Structures are given as structure tokens and as C-alpha cells.
């Protein structure tokens, strides 16, 4: 079961060149495959490991995005990436046991 997280992008810069490069490098630290959807514009999925695919999503502050990870450490990957988008208030949809536990 993939780990999925929806969040509203808080970062003022959205996902433009510098933040997107940092996002790609963070995604590459995990073996889980992570896809990003821009729910506000309907664009995606884009691989979290592809700078240009991420840029093509046109993610800006206030957009809602969905991160979907599959593979080893998928929840860690999703949380690390969500944090880069300033998504600390992220609403977790499913699959993040540790957070369901912590939030209960």
C-alpha cells in the first residue's frame, strides 16, 4: 500500500528552481519512488527525482499537492519532502502509522 499525503504548499517560493533542486536531492536519498501531483492545476504525476518534471507542475504557494510514495521508507520520504514544501500542518490521509499514533 503506497503512502500518500496531501498538503497545501506553504513555502513562499512554491516549487521553483532552487527549492525544486533541493526537493530532487532530498527525494534521491530514499529508495522509495515518489510521485507528485498538483491537485490545484491538475498536473502530474511527476517523479520527485526529476527537476524538470517538478517544474512542469507549476507548484506555487497555496497550491494543494499530493505526494505518493511506494517502496522502502515511503513514509519517511513523504514526510521529508512535505517538510520542504512547508507542509508541517499536513493532513495525513493514510498509511502513516507513526503519525496516526502520535496524533491520537
Amino acid at each position, binding site marked *: 500500500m503506497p503512502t500518500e499525503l496531501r498538503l497545501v504548499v506553504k513555502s513562499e517560493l512554491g516549487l521553483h528552481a532552487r527549492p525544486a533542486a533541493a526537493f*530532487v536531492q532530498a527525494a534521491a536519498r530514499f529508495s522509495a519512488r515518489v510521485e507528485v501531483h498538483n491537485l490545484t492545476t491538475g498536473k502530474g504525476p511527476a517523479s520527485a527525482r526529476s*527537476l*524538470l518534471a517538478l517544474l512542469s507542475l507549476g507548484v506555487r504557494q497555496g497550491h494543494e499537492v499530493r505526494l505518493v510514495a511506494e517502496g522502502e521508507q515511503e513514509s519517511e520520504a513523504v514526510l521529508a519532502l512535505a517538510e520542504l514544501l512547508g507542509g508541517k500542518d499536513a493532513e495525513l490521509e493514510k498509511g502513516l502509522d507513526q503519525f496516526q499514533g502520535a496524533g491520537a
Partner: protein
Amino acid sequence: MVGIVIVSHSGKIAGGIKDLIEQLTQGRVRVEVAAGAVDGSLGTDATAITAAIQRADTGEGVAVLMDLGSAVLSAETALDLLPLEARKRALLCDAPLVEGAVAAGVEASLGSDLAAVRQAAEMSRSLTKLGG
């Protein structure tokens, strides 16, 4: 790690792109520049490109990004001037220079192989900027 060579008619263009890649990758990727004609005017020089490819090559190959027109011809000539072994590890990328070089640099910083770095660069051909 795959190295990157920026070929431009202008040293300012090439140097600016090098700065951009180095900032985005925290200086982890080797980026070499070959820009300007032999006399320092706007232009390109095949032998300078060959030398830049050799400087950028740490054994895992080099992705070469070019600007316009004769830069492409010079880069093709530069490949022919390389020793055979180095020639096998150098690929020209058919991509817009800024977008392609940045994408290639970030991809290289992930430790990806040369084919993946070129593919990342060439994906920029279909990148739209205004959400169209």
C-alpha cells in the same frame, strides 16, 4: 559523477549557467566552460571544448550542452578531437542551454549515469513555463 560542459558563444552566458548549477548542487558537480572564440570575441572553439570535456571527465562521462548554431558544429568537432576512450564517454545533449544544463547538473548530482543525465537535459525540450 558525470561532468557537465557548457559551450556558449559568450563567456558570460556560460559562466552564469555554471554559477547556477553550482549553487543548485552545492558545488558537487564538476562544471567546465568552453566559451568564446580563440581571440576572445563571441564564438566557439573546438579545441577549447575538447579541453573542457577532458577537464570535466572523472571517468563517468561528460554531458555537453551547447547554445546555438556554430556551437553545435564546434562541439561535434570537439568530440572528434578527443582520444577514443574519452570520446565514448562524452555525449552532446539536444536541449535548450539553460534549462538543459540545470536539469543535467541536478541529475548528475544524484549520481545518475550519463544516459540518465542526457535524458534529464533533453526533457527540457517539452518544458512549458507559463502553465500552458
